[in-house]
């Protein structure tokens, strides 16, 4: 792990609740990073904020990764908006 990843970027995304932030964090975490010597992403959550910490060999690598993570977060948030707390509901 001697390779240095000089470019970094942090995303902080507020959710409605700490539980939602935790769910988002757990949903994103399992997928492995394909090129670990070029990119690293760390997900963490603190109260209702999800933090995604990117570090990579170039800003291009970071941009691609951020765009992908944001796409995934969009799906997660849409899921929460539609389904959170509605497991007893009969949808119409």
């Amino acid at each position, binding site marked *: 792990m001697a390779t240095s990843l000089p470019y970094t970027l942090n995303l902080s995304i507020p959710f409605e609740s700490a539980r939602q932030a935790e769910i988002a964090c757990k949903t*994103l*975490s399992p997928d492995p990073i394909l090129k670990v010597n070029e990119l690293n992403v760390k997900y963490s959550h603190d109260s209702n904020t999800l933090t995604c910490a990117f570090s990579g060999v170039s800003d291009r690598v970071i941009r691609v990764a951020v765009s992908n993570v944001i796409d995934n977060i969009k799906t997660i948030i849409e*899921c*929460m908006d539609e*389904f*959170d707390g509605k*497991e007893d509901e*009969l949808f119409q």
Partner: protein
Amino acid sequence: MTVDLDQYAKPGKGYYLALGLEGSANKLGVGIIKHHLGQLSSTNRAEVLSNVRDTYITPPGEGFLPRDTARHHRNWVVRIIKKALVEGNVRGTDLDCICFTQGPGMGAPLQSVVIAARTLSQLWNLPLVGVNHCIGHIEMGREITGAHNPVVLYVSGGNTQVIAYSDQRYRIFGETLDIAIGNCLDRFARTLMIPNEPAPGYNIEQMAKKGKHLVSLPYTVKGMDLSMSGILANIDQIAKDLFGKAKQVKNKQLIDEETGEPITSEDLCFSLQEVLFSMLVEITERALAHVNSNQVLIVGGVGSNERLQEMMKLMIQDRKNGQIYATDERFCIDNGIMIAHAGLLSYRTGQTNDLWNTVCTQRFRTDEVFIKWRDD
């Protein structure tokens, strides 16, 4: 069959419900299936409560690329899940598990769907079950047709396999050595600029019905396996010679030797189908002889081709008590219900995936899956 499928039943509940999410290629499917307690049999069939599908259609001449397909799935997945719940008249609390395609398939589309599966599973506190796409096709085909222990011909856009069950595995007898049969047909459809709506293979099938003359193409069965890329290259070249845009050389005319009539694109579709399907029939028949079976089950998108079903029937009729089983496009073409069905069988034998174990994989062979729910 003596496997106890009810060890994990919820107390006081007489049935199971599973939600299935499929998105390994250009179809996004969500389905809900119901199993009643006890072994599945002709009197205790699985019930399809909903089966919703949305297909990403590209313009004529273009295939679907992973990134664009993933975007399509992300755009639609939540809406399609909701539609399936509405159609099935099902609440989240009625569900037992959420099943998703773990592979094989295209990486990006698979990943975009599993994100929704993971989120929903945590929101509603439901276990996740990862399903092998091929096993989904096989189990759904068996359930719908009632075929007990058939030789399975699995033919789709990404897979071409002849499969037989033995000792709790679906074992691959023969398969393609290069491209899948559906891929071969789809790519030829692109060469001819045939529309991808509703499906390129369907449009080729309709054109082939009007074809009369058989154009000579390579026939490439390799033992129990097939090779199809050479056939595609060959027929692509013929099509380019006949209808190509390069007008500097006058387009070649290809004439049918017997009638002297010119070869049309319909004839090419007809010839391609005849050659590819004969190859499939040959290796399927050989597999039947090997395992001493007389039942064939055709699954996968190409399985909805009626000419393939007809050719297979001609072969099977010559065998003693031969039977052919096939389903229509609702269950042949990729769908969520088959993932729900195979996933629920897994769930009923205690197989679930924890979150860390839900990473999708592009390569996931049929014979890697331990078939815990069968022991015949």
